[in-house]
């Protein structure tokens, strides 16, 4: 209710301002002045406002950086993620430096060169030297950014996955299911035509590799051990987003996509640092329907012993599907 009242008050203020403007226009007409002519004092006021409001914007930006810094994602919990963080710090520092130079400069110029009737502008149409400078400098800086970026991208995407534990992540409206590849570290074949109420993600049980696979409601990872996530989707495009690990990959019906990474911090360590509520979580990051906002699965990073105990408690697919028949 208060919101509506505020909105009403604002509307009334606007209506009043509009009326005032009309009055001023009529008065000016009586005095034979042109109310819409930009005067020297207008230039003075507007130039000054650009300086003040512009600097206010800079202050607002700095305030946000301090005030909301603690809300940002913690340091990456994966090996490649740490490299991405370094690249991010480098790029962010660079763009902030440029931002904090150019924006105040723009607003200052607006103020400094506010016009008046007595002044004349300086006729300065081009300068090959200056233009060369500000083509070459961005080119050099960008060369650095591109090389650094591509190196990090290469180190992230082209990793050796021969040792990685394979886990499948299966998406559907609006939940995630995971499949451990079992002791053989091989996922059995799957096909959407095999999906039934029992065989929820369509695993081919004729395939020997499927027998020791395990369906999971949450994913456990061993700290320091590489993992290769394979993604499938049942219905529409979803995107598996694990912000703490700096991992994201679309899940596309008809395709298998993948992302490999190595977790470096256990959930327990993170809880100590970030608070008891902390949890690694998988989100959906591609619009997928009404409950898109609530499609989650938890990831837990733990030691080898904890992992072994947990995985042993889970039934294999052969136990689940074949023995029943």
């Amino acid at each position, binding site marked *: 209710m208060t919101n509506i009242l505020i909105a009403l008050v604002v509307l009334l203020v606007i209506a009043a*301002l*509009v009326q005032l*403007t009309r009055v001023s226009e009529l008065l000016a007409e009586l005095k034979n002045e*042109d109310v*819409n*002519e*930009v005067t020297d004092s207008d*230039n003075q006021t*507007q*130039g000054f406002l*650009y300086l003040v*409001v512009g600097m206010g914007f800079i202050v*607002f930006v700095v305030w946000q950086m301090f005030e909301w810094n603690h*809300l940002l994602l913690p340091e990456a919990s994966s090996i490649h993620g740490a*490299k*991405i963080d370094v690249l*991010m710090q480098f790029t962010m520092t660079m763009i902030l430096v440029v*931002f904090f130079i*150019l*924006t105040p400069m723009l607003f200052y*110029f607006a103020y400094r*060169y506010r*016009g008046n009737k007595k002044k004349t*502008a*300086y*006729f*300065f*149409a*081009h*300068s090959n030297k200056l233009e060369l400078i500000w*083509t070459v400098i*961005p080119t050099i800086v960008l060369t650095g*950014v591109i090389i650094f970026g*591509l190196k*990090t*991208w290469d180190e*992230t*995407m*082209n990793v050796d996955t021969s040792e990685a534990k394979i886990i499948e992540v299966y998406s*559907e409206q609006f939940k995630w299911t995971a499949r451990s590849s079992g002791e053989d570290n091989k996922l059995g074949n799957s096909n*959407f035509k095999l*999906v039934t109420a029992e065989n929820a993600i369509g695993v081919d049980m004729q395939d020997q590799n499927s027998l020791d696979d395990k369906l999971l409601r949450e994913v456990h990872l061993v700290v320091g051990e590489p993992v290769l996530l394979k993604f499938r989707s049942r*219905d*529409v495009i979803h*995107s598996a987003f694990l912000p703490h690990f700096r991992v*994201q*990959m*679309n899940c596309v*019906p008809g*395709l298998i996509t993948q992302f490999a990474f190595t977790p470096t911090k256990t959930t327990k360590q993170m809880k100590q640092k970030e608070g008891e509520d*902390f*949890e690694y979580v998988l989100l959906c*990051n591609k*619009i997928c*329907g*009404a*409950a898109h*906002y*609530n499609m*989650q699965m938890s990831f837990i990073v733990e030691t080898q012993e904890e992992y072994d105990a947990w995985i042993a408690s889970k039934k294999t697919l052969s136990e689940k599907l074949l023995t029943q028949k």
Partner: protein
Amino acid sequence: MSDHHKETFITKYIFSQDHKMIAKQFLITGMIMAVLGMIMSAVFRVQLANPGESSILYTLLPGSWVNEMGALNPDKYLALVTMHGTILVFWVLTAGLSGTFANFLIPLQIGARDMASGFINMLSYWFFFIATIVLVSSIYVQGGPASGGWTIYPPLSALPQAIPGSGTGMTLWLVSITLFVVGSLLGGLNYIVTILNLRTKGMSMQRMPLTIWALLVTAILGVLSFPVLLSCGLLLIFDRSFGTSFYLSDIIVNGEMLHNMGGSPILFEHLFWFLGHPEVYIILLPALGIISEVISVNSRKPIFGYKAMVVSILVIGFLSFIVWGHHMFMTGMNPFLGSVFTFTTLLIAIPSAVKVFNYLATLWRANIRFTPAMLFAIAGVSAFITGGLTGLILGDSALDINVHDTYFVVGHFHIVMGLSAIYGMLAGVYHWFPKMYGRMMNKNLGYLHFWATFICAYGVFFPMHFLGLAGLPRRYYTNTAFPMFDGLSNINDIITFFALAGAIVQTLFLFNFFYSIFKGTKASQNPWKSNSLEWTTPVERIHGNWPGELPTVHRWAYDYSKPGAEDDFVLQTEPLKEGEEEH
């Protein structure tokens, strides 16, 4: 053309073939759609600040969009963001911006009586108009309008079982966008032909104002990329209605196993973004053209580095065709391909940086006259800097992994494309209003409108970067489902406050615009003391633009404060004096 045949109300105001009237039709349709799109954003911002609560704003919505508790339904939240995006990207910033200013400025600034084909030009508007009617009507069909995001990725957009909006609403969306593309192609071809063939005597390409250069490249981009969107949409229509499998494969939805095999949704994304990225520059370039013109006129200085500005427009236009893959880094594309797209994408920063430095150099030692248009133009440069810089993060594939599809992206493109383009458009409206309607818009209301908009806009979009860096995905009905986002509600409140305030202050502009059409003070022929040709036409805005002969051009459009000249401006029609050098 120049003979004054008698015009009826219908030929003058409705089925007009006069480019100036068509421009105004585009502008006013665009403004109506902008108001609609803005109201939608106000509604979903209220939901984001007060998730799951009822609001008086929801009474604006069709009844079935709200549940018994008075809260917005999650799928209708998605309908709102989808329609907001569609309207703003295509209706306001493509048709509303290019349609208005290409139509209005091209003949006037190159010295032509009208477009090459007035009839095709009229058709272009009426296709757009029908597209508008279809799109707006889709809001009221069963299941609601398209809800799969403005990028309408299949399979979500192909399967009504997946989301209600993918039923009739999506069909109408596709019909509407098909009409829209036809309209924009008719317009675009006309703009190109007109600029190339109908320039008046002396108006060489090197003397064209930057607005015309920008509109020329924009039209070329549109003509090359919109047909791809059309084919992309046609294949989707086939998949939806005729059982083909271009984009669909291996799908079970709502327990139903579909027959489709062998298609790929990624194909859709490639086709879509082949339009989608040039589209960004279709939006941005006209705004930058307007900003260049307005800054130069009101700085009373030539635009700095005219040739470099033209070259950077051309380079940006070219590069925009080879960067579309940066929207798809997370689709599982070959990492090498990702590297190529990162490389080409980051290259765009070079011509963009040149443009920014040239704007700064234009302002340096200027004699700035702060018209409302000038305020918006400078703010447009500011938005271009702020939003452009974050593009360096999103365009870098490695960094994109963690900010892709988060609010960081939302902040980025709303500033660099939304704000720059809207500021450019508003600058254009304030600047050329006297030429459009023969009257002035009120200066003081313009000042107020500017400062309120400027403050609110940064208040809305800058905090979004922090939401994104906190990992918050876009297109979430609410962020309360994840404890990790609990700290963010404060930011959401701030954004919503500024969004509502920013929406309300636009009434200042609307009032000023419509009031001034009828009651504004009378404009003189050249109120801004500008050089370009449009200001040599009579205030009465006649069909055919110039009574008698077309003007002859002797110089470029930027001889402001030229040493040796009597005034601080020299019309393009003024012959060079003896010994005077052209720029």
